[in-house]
């Protein structure tokens, strides 16, 4: 019996292929965006895990020089000869043009088992080849097919190496990188008994895995952002599905009543309904998965670029397929269908068998319901404000955004109705008045679609305002801060001294840059030594400072810290900061330091030398007349033999930084546009749904002599009015969102706050897009109305009779 019922229910879709397409497409879109974002996140997390597990980095301590320079080979051998189980790693980057390859040279002879040296493919490995010149490079297929520097040793493909990296014998890495001293030493967790503590045997710094910056932690906020976008898209998609299922329910009232009258038990009917939805959910979910995979694959290179630029986290630029991901996405889709269909199912269950089959205007909201909605909305908006102002965590930041969205969406129908009522009072002529009254009448049916549009529009405004503000601030900051004409790096301290002597008479100023890793307020970070020079005094913007901060800094009597450190550790000028064991200095000022995920503190060169007497500067910022910069750069490269990337001019750094920035937000732009597309589609489904039901309202107007073409134009105008009004409401919501992103979420996620700027041209462009979306959405129902056969309109009266 259920089979027959199911067949009867399904026949509806055969008669309404457009509706069927709408339902499937809505579900597929919702699934696609959600699953696409999830696929990207999963891929990224897998990449972090691989990277973290490489050489047991997630478990093994390291010994490294406090200044980040290599560990002298003799020191490594001395530690081994003293009995300590340490293993050397030479790591570095090979670059040629755009091609880059991170090289990890290991010594498998001494690597602790925890280092988990990678597994080899079935092709096997010629081990003599691995150990003897020219050596072998192990890398993933993706890395091997990407642009690589020239003249590499033979490559073997294996799957457990982080993307963009190659694993080689330490001898091979030493040859390729021209470095024989280990970059750091891995420390076996268990050392031989009866040995003095390792700390007493070496001055090298021992760093535990948790003290090192973990890309998974750093990138958390980025992925949370993506997830939020995915959920938003999913919610918008569900509006479409809800509209489609609601419409199908209305149109099948007669069928349902007949089936029940013929003796079909309610339980069987609901089972048939459920089966139908499950089948539809599965089919659309699968379509959505394919689409989602395509979206993710298209966005992946951009995401990889972003994460590399922002956090230095390496990701493969291509996507792999994970069945668990697909399963999770399908479950999500089915759950979404269940939520979207709950209302229709509930009504079916309550439908009296003998009630008339006449479709009532669907979803007529009573004034009381509206008032209830408005009250909930106000509470949500208040909660949003409270969370934003007093939340103080990333998750409460997102909570504030969620409350803002939900509150604004719920408030939308109430506000629109009020606005339309207001407009109606001022309307001239009966037609205008009818148009506005009729629009208001449609509100309940369209409110869900309009909410979706509101969300998409305000997300768009908010995110683009955030990105625009960020970009403007960032570029301005780069201009201010990158004032030196040339930046030069010497390969060794001895070379650096020679370079300094050479440069001093040939430039206006040689400003050494020297730094050491440090733990600042419990976080991994770096302490910089900086010369006292007008270059810094004039150009480094301090966002908070004590009086005479620069003068006091010059006396060695304090530190400047970056905004990230100030915010994370809740430090402000006047507080004390410990920058080395036993060295605590007052904080004189806070500078902005966009794009740097780590804590940073600046002291004078003298103070730095007192703390780290063994670290000599190898990097210099040079002040020189801009027209002489290029000449000096080529002299340094050609005559001084510095590698090309050791001499960088200001323009190069700026271009690189801005490129990284733009790539970072490419994905945001793409997701914005996709969400808007989905919202436009939701509007279309809403309008189509209403179109069939509204004949009863349109027929009298037609009978009064208004042509079908004119009625169609009214339909179109109504859609534009609603879209325009929604946009007007989306504008403040979007700006509120932008404020939350800049002042709450950015601060929590990245540690910096940005001044908000408004971009009216972008907003105007978005209004245009919204109107285009509304036009497109209204086009199909309007066209159908223009071409409707008069007999159908006449039938409306016949049925009344």
């Amino acid at each position: 019996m259920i089979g027959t019922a199911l067949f009867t229910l399904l026949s509806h879709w055969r008669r309404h292929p457009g509706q069927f397409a709408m339902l499937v497409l809505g579900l597929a879109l919702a699934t696609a965006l959600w699953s696409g974002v999830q696929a990207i996140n999963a891929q990224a997390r897998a990449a972090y895990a691989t990277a973290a597990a490489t050489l047991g980095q997630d478990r093994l301590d390291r010994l490294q020089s406090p200044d980040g320079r290599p560990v002298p080979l003799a020191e490594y051998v001395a530690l081994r000869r003293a009995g300590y189980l340490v293993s050397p790693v030479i790591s570095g980057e090979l670059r040629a043009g755009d091609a880059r390859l991170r090289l990890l040279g290991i010594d498998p002879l001494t690597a602790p088992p925890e280092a988990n040296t990678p597994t080899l493919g079935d092709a096997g490995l010629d081990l003599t080849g691995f150990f003897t010149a020219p050596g072998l490079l192990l890398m993933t297929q993706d890395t091997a097919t990407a642009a690589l520097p020239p003249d590499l040793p033979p490559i073997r493909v294996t799957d457990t190496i982080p993307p963009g990296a190659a694993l080689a014998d330490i001898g091979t890495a030493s040859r390729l990188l021209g470095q024989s001293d280990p970059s750091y030493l891995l420390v076996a967790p268990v050392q031989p008994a009866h040995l003095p503590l390792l700390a007493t045997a070496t001055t090298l710094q021992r760093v535990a895995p948790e003290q090192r910056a973990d890309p998974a932690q750093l990138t958390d906020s980025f992925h949370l952002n993506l997830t939020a976008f995915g959920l938003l898209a999913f919610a918008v998609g569900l509006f479409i599905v809800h509209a489609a299922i609601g419409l199908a329910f209305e149109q099948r009232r007669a069928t349902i009543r007949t089936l029940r009258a013929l003796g079909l038990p309610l339980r069987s009917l609901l089972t048939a309904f459920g089966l139908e939805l499950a089948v539809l959910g599965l089919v659309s979910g699968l379509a959505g998965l394919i689409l989602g995979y395509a979206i993710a694959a298209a966005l992946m290179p951009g995401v990889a670029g972003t994460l590399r630029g922002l956090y230095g986290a390496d990701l493969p630029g291509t996507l792999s397929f994970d069945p668990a991901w697909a399963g999770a996405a399908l479950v999500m889709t089915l759950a979404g269908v269940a939520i979207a269909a709950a209302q229709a199912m509930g009504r079916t269950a309550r439908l009296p068998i003998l009630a008339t089959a006449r479709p009532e205007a669907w979803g007529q909201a009573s004034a009381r319901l509206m008032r209830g909605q408005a009250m909930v909305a106000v509470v949500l908006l208040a909660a949003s404000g409270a969370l934003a102002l007093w939340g103080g965590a990333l998750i409460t930041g997102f909570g504030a955004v969620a409350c803002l969205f939900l509150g604004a969406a719920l408030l939308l129908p109430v506000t629109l109705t009020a606005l339309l009522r207001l407009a109606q009072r001022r309307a001239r002529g009966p037609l205008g008045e009818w148009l506005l009254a009729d629009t208001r009448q449609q509100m309940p049916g369209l409110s869900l679609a309009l909410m979706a549009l509101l969300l998409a529009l305000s997300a768009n405004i908010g995110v683009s305002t955030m990105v625009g503000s960020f970009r403007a601030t960032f570029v301005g900051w780069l201009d201010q801060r990158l004032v030196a004409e040339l930046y030069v790096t010497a390969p060794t301290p001895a070379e650096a001294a020679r370079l300094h002597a050479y440069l001093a008479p040939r430039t206006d100023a040689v400003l050494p840059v020297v730094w050491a890793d440090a733990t600042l307020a419990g976080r991994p970070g770096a302490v910089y030594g900086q010369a006292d020079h007008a270059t810094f005094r004039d150009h480094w913007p301090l966002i908070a400072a004590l009086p005479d901060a620069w003068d006091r800094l010059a006396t060695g009597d304090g530190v400047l810290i970056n905004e990230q450190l100030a915010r994370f550790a809740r430090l402000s000028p006047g507080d004390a900061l410990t920058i080395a064991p036993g060295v605590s200095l007052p904080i004189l000022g806070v500078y902005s330091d966009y794009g740097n995920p780590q804590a940073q503190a600046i002291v004078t060169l003298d103070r730095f030398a007192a703390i780290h007497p063994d670290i000599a500067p190898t990097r210099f910022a040079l002040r020189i007349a801009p027209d002489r910069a290029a000449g000096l750069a080529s002299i340094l490269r050609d005559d001084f033999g510095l590698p090309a990337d050791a001499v960088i001019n200001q323009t190069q750094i700026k271009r690189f930084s801005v490129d990284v920035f733009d790539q970072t937000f490419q994905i945001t732009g793409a997701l914005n546009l996709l969400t808007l597309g989905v919202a436009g589609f939701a509007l279309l489904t809403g309008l189509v749904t209403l179109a069939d039901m509204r004949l009863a309202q349109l027929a009298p107007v037609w009978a009064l002599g208004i042509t079908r073409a004119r009625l169609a134009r009214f339909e179109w105008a109504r859609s534009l009015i609603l879209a325009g009004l929604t946009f007007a409401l989306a504008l403040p919501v979007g700006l509120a969102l932008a404020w939350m992103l800049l002042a709450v979420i950015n601060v929590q996620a990245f540690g910096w706050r940005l001044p908000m700027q408004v971009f009216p041209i972008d907003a105007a462009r978005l209004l245009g897009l919204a109107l285009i979306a509304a036009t497109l959405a209204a086009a199909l129902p309007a066209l159908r109305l223009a071409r409707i056969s008069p007999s159908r309109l006449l039938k409306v009266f016949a049925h009344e009779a």
Partner: protein
Amino acid sequence: MKPSLYAALLWLIAGQATAQGFAGLGTEAAGFSIPQSPAIFDFPADHGPHPGYRIEWWYLTASLTGPDGTDYGAQWTLFRSALAPHDAQGWDGSQLWMGHAGLTTPDRHFSAERLARGGIGQAGVTAEPFAAWIDDWAMTSTAPAGADALDALRVTARGDGFAHDLALTTTGPLIFHGQAGYSVKSAQGQASYYYSQPFYSLSGTITLNDGVIPVTGTAWLDREWSSQPLSETQDGWDWVSLQFDDGARLMGFTLRDRAAPSFTAATWIAPDGQSQSYRDGALSMTPLAQSRVAGRDVPTTWRIELPDRALDVTASAINPHSWMDVSVPYWEGPVRVTGTHPGRGYLEMTGYE
């Protein structure tokens, strides 16, 4: 299961008992020197490494006695394995080094392994002054000027749960096996250079978790190098070095062959240092009892016969579980000898799967 790089590496320098012979010792020797007869030695240089040959070892076994009469055994070994028949400094060195240390008590056995590459100073051997080392393990000559470098040695090693520090002295001569140090290993003629210093007496300490124990005893040092000492079908060997109570010594081994009868060789060493080598077939080694060790059956009691010397003895493991749990595992431990020539010694068995 895919081999990890780590395991695969060990496969390379040591191999496994496969078609390639135990420890990869049956593989081709392209570019490497091959031992020639007659053997001509040049000391002290030949105490040092021979990079032109593929494999080489400095192999010390010691039978020890504690203050309460308890038997102990100690092992200190440094293997050299060359990837190419030359040496180089820095990371480009083509010499790989593997150290094994063992310590046996009647009821416990400890083993440890260290790996290193040559060229950076982490491991190596120098002939003058003689020193062999890997990490903090060392075998260093303490011989007075003019004496053979191997006449006095200090040997130290440390592993998980044990350590030993032994001072060795001898006045006996070096003993050359086979044809004056040219030791044939199969009927096809594979051979190695092989000499020993079997006359050490020693004193020193061993350290276990429960404390330091002073020990005295005897020790035997083997020096051997070659490029392809096993034939392809030889899977492993059983080797003994025995010190009899009357002061005589015996070195004997059986190379087990999948495709042919076992190949045996022996050297009889009189108390005065006179030695006589025996060709294939003169010595017979017969397993008398097996022990279940590390999941395999290993013969830990042997009947050893050398009819030419009217020798018929039984060698029994002091601890049947003297299993060297290293990347290429094998059995190595002290034995008690009973029969026509009572005494003690060391037993090594490889290639038991």
